């Protein structure tokens, strides 16, 4: 009996010690890994009356030209401050993609960025709701509640999103970016909210006239809506039914 009691006491002592260890292990990471989030709230004053979109005419897009990419870098402050990441880890909000039809040899060049889908898979899969779509159709990441799980990157059919693999310095004030979170083209929301157009569209020289047009897809009198009505426009991966706000002519 007494041997049993002793065994029981040693078991209880062991239980007590284990509980202390578990408590320590649970609490410690929160203290060690916590870094204060940057305080910034995005302006949510958007209306579903508008649906902002970009039309890209690939016939006007020069394969040697990357002015849209450099303009985006300058505006949003990416492309220079990731010094430790390798080329596959560095963020790219917009990229030039070269296409070649193997049957005919026909070549095309076009910029690809976040397509700002009406039914964005990144928003569907995001566990916290950090991936979100504004009422005016612009798809953004709320950097305050992004936990860096990268499920949105798995879900995006356009490979439009990038993960930040290192501590960043020298960021643009209009586009806060942070280590361990995901980011992508914001359609230059800061410019759009101020009544302007995205930096890429503004910088696009085109071959004979601009290759990029920005505007309100819901406004039948906007240039983008008129052009789409007259000449049509294609969606990349239209088969997925995501109805992106970025449309292409000539593909």
């Amino acid at each position, binding site marked *: 009996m007494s041997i049993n009691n002793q065994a029981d006491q040693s078991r209880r002592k062991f239980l007590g010690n284990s509980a202390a260890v578990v408590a320590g292990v649970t609490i410690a990471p929160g203290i060690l890994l916590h870094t204060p989030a940057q305080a910034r709230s995005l302006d949510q004053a958007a209306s579903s009356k508008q649906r902002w979109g970009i039309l890209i005419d690939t016939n006007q897009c020069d394969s040697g030209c990357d002015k849209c990419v450099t303009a985006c870098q300058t505006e949003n402050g990416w492309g220079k401050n990731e010094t430790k990441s390798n080329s596959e880890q560095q963020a790219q909000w917009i990229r030039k993609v070269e296409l070649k039809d193997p049957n005919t040899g026909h070549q095309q060049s076009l910029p690809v960025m976040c397509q700002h889908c009406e039914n964005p898979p990144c928003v569907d899969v995001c566990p916290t709701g950090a991936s979100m779509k504004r009422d005016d159709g612009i798809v953004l990441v709320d950097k305050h509640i992004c936990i860096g799980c990268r499920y949105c990157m*798995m879900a995006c059919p356009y*490979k439009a999103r990038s993960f930040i693999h290192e501590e960043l310095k020298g960021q643009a004030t209009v586009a806060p970016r942070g280590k361990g979170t995901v980011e992508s083209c914001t359609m230059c929301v800061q410019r759009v909210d101020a009544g302007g157009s995205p930096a890429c569209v503004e910088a696009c020289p085109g071959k004979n006239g601009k290759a990029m047009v920005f505007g309100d897809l819901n406004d039948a009198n906007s240039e983008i809506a008129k052009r789409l009505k007259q000449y049509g426009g294609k969606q990349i991966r239209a088969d997925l039914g995501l109805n992106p706000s970025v449309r292409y002519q000539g593909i």
Partner: protein
Amino acid sequence: MKKPILREVNESMGFYALLGVFGALILVALGAVYFMEHNGHHVTGMNNQIVWGMPHVFALFLIVAASGALNVASIASVFGRYQYKPLAPLSTVLAAALLLGGLMVLVLDLGRPDRLIVAMTYYNFKSIFAWNIILYNGFLAILVVYLWTQLDPTMVKYGKIAGFAAFIWRLVLTTGTGSIFGFLVARQGYDAAIMAPMFIIMSFAFGLAVFMLVMFAAYKWTNRPLGDGIVRRLKNLLGVFVGAVLYFSLVFHLTNLYATEHHGVEAFILRDGGIFTNLYWWGHFVIGGLLPLFLLYCRKTRDSRTLIGLASLLIILGGIAQLYVIIVGGQAYPLDMFPGMEVSSSFADGVVNNYSPSLAETLLGLGGFAVAMLLVTVVARALRMLPESLADDVVDPHHSKADA
């Protein structure tokens, strides 16, 4: 029939040696996490093309195996096979331990693990990830109650209902885990409804394989008798599960092979994918499938505990290979944004993506195993959960007749 007595393990040298080994592995893993989180993910092999790597392979293996580790308890409670009842507590504890190990790896690989509280307080109910957070936490809660019904004589009457709840819950849970990939329409390698049932059958095989090894180790190291009867039944069941995994894997690829649009990704995984092709055929199919089947059923090998243990180990290695092919291979194959066109860009469009896992990622993954095993060791000491004897006459008084 003698009534099986559940007894805690003693604080022997071996017990502390196990705590030491697993504790050291966990410390190394935490060091790796600090290294990765302090520097950022640029010190890992992951990048903007391969966004999920080694940590996810290990984490998903552990989470899938957790569900399957409950097989033995389910067979006892849900299917009424009393012979397995004495092992139900070990099965339940192992399930919870593996799940916690897997979740630890998953959480510590987040870009912002310090924001775990955000994941717990902000829910997007359309996200399968968010469902899984609820499914995982709910599973842990059910397992605690289930274990209570197994260990407390006053709670035994609720055992059947708790067992049934746990059984249904784990099927839903593994459906959720498989659907992480099954619902990804964007990528050629995923987007298949068969992912969910395939993950369920994978969980049966991987979980039982881990259970077999833990059971063998626990009984050998505590010098408790373990009869051939229960081992024979479990290894036969394990063989059936391994065969079923191969079947699902074959059907998945055969279905894809029929559709021309999937020929590219199938050729990549099955023929031209280098490491992925080797891992699929040699790792998953031969080492994790055919070889264990041979060891478990061949007349010359099937009665050897060592070889049954080896088969279990091979199933685990094959399972990790299979998940590597699914998770990393599925991302390595380029996204098909412009069907029929040759594509190139500065962002790796149109090319097979590279991934070389770093040491830190792998150590974090192994840390998940260590957490699971440490928990089992500690609970085996803290609770009276391991039967003193699983000798044939204790487990089943009719064993000689049944096996004749």
